[in-house]
């Protein structure tokens, strides 16, 4: 077993395959806690988690709040519109001020790529990246991979299609880093204007036609089409995107019978996914949300505790 020695979770790019597996294994045990009648364990009692979401979020923020609460930590929400960030204070100053009040974790979502890395360099608290710009969304990547492993029983050798707007997707990047490390074959698919050329360097195959690859993949992970991006003329119309890329029942007839359909949310019903498929038996979208809680509990738990010195060789003494 590889020990976890990190204080921060900033991205999947810097994690080893063993570290990723360790989080997934830990999350599997945490899933059971949510089935207890008392859904709470004292592991992080007395710790304080600050949710610093400088971008809107529903499920990620609530998921982190519930995860921290189930570990008995206290949670404080930071709302940027009511804060001194809106008065011109820098992110680092704001974070340092919050830290001065004695907190242990900052969970940060920010529109700028690298925001979490920046905070991790100046704070003593643990920094958990909940999405930074177009860079990474590591807990989403972990929960997607966790769900694939749970349903399919393995990651190695799986063929995973990531479909949609690849150029601005932090969810895609975290998925790609994790899946490639664990030995999956990743195919990214979308209109050529939404698939950046250098993405191949991450070790993925590129396809511009969903119908070309739909028959061979085990998993289809759909990304949200950001309708505001259509205004930038990156694709002609929502309707055309839906015609060429939407996962609907007609298209699924050509897919493997046991293909699983994933979506990180929020989804545009009728654009990248048809309502029948979203609510259908191949969809694991709500399972993803459920697993997100266990994964975030595991991440908070693993990043807590003291990591200054290694106790890996100290046997279990406290019995």
């Amino acid at each position, binding site marked *: 077993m590889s020990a976890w020695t990190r204080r921060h979770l900033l991205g999947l790019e810097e994690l080893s395959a063993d570290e990723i597996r360790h989080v997934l294994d830990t999350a599997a045990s945490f899933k059971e806690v949510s089935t207890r009648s008392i859904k709470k364990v004292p592991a992080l009692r007395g710790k304080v988690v600050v949710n610093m979401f400088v971008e809107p979020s529903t499920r990620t923020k609530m998921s982190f709040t519930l995860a921290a609460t189930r570990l008995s930590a206290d949670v404080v929400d930071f709302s940027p519109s009511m804060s001194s960030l809106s008065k011109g204070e820098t992110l680092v100053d704001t974070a340092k001020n919050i830290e001065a009040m004695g907190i242990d974790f900052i969970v940060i979502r920010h529109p700028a790529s690298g925001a979490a890395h920046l905070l991790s360099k100046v704070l003593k608290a643990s920094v958990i990246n909940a999405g930074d710009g177009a860079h990474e969304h590591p807990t989403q990547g972990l929960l997607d991979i966790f769900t694939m492993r749970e349903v399919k029983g393995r990651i190695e050798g799986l063929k995973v299609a990531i479909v949609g707007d690849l150029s601005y997707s932090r969810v895609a990047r975290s998925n790609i880093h994790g899946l490639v490390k664990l030995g999956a074959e990743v195919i990214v698919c979308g209109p050529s204007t939404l698939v950046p050329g250098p993405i191949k360097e991450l070790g993925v195959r590129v396809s511009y036609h969903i119908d070309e690859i739909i028959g061979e993949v085990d998993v289809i992970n759909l990304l949200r089409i950001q309708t505001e991006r259509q205004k930038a003329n990156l694709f002609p119309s929502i309707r055309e995107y839906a015609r060429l890329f939407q996962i609907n029942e007609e298209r699924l007839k050509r897919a493997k019978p046991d293909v699983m359909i994933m979506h990180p949310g929020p989804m545009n019903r009728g654009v990248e996914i048809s309502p029948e498929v979203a609510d259908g038996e191949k969809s694991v979208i709500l399972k993803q949300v459920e697993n997100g809680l266990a994964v975030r509990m595991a991440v908070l738990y693993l990043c807590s505790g003291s990591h200054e010195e290694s106790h890996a060789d100290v046997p279990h003494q*406290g019995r």
Partner: protein
Amino acid sequence: MPDPKRLMDQAAVEAALERITNEILARNATRSRLAVIGIHTRGVVLAKRVHEALQSRTGAEIPFGTLDITLYRDDHDVHGVKAVVRATDIPFHLDGKDVILVDDVLFTGRTTRAALTELVDFGRPSTIQLAVLVDRGHRELPIQPDYVGGRFDTHRQDSVHVRLAETDPSEEVVLVQGKASA
């Protein structure tokens, strides 16, 4: 480092578990209230053996569960995260049960403390009785076992290893002397 000293061999372990089983039956007349819960990892192995013996002796179906106390430990800050978190699995109602809690070694009592805290989060047993294969002393908390396989004098810095056929190449209990501290 001095050679490890064998405290119990396989026959001694088996005899100890048989005696514990007898004592449990002598003390718990109401068989229908009995339940067995093992503490990960080797406590679970021992608990399975005790559970099997109790079922075959009574002919009754006795509930069985496992407890992982990692999330209830009090040394999270001191030692950091090192243990693998395993699932706690108690697939029955604890209320009104006479729970036999099984662990391999009783030392400081802190694992037992954590196990008791976790158990009462699951329900309100009628009694919780502690069965251990080895009591090596040096308690830091007011916790005593109800059933003991063997009591051994140890130094605080020694370590006691329980090896069982199910998880290890051989079955024995050995004491490895630690460095004498000043």
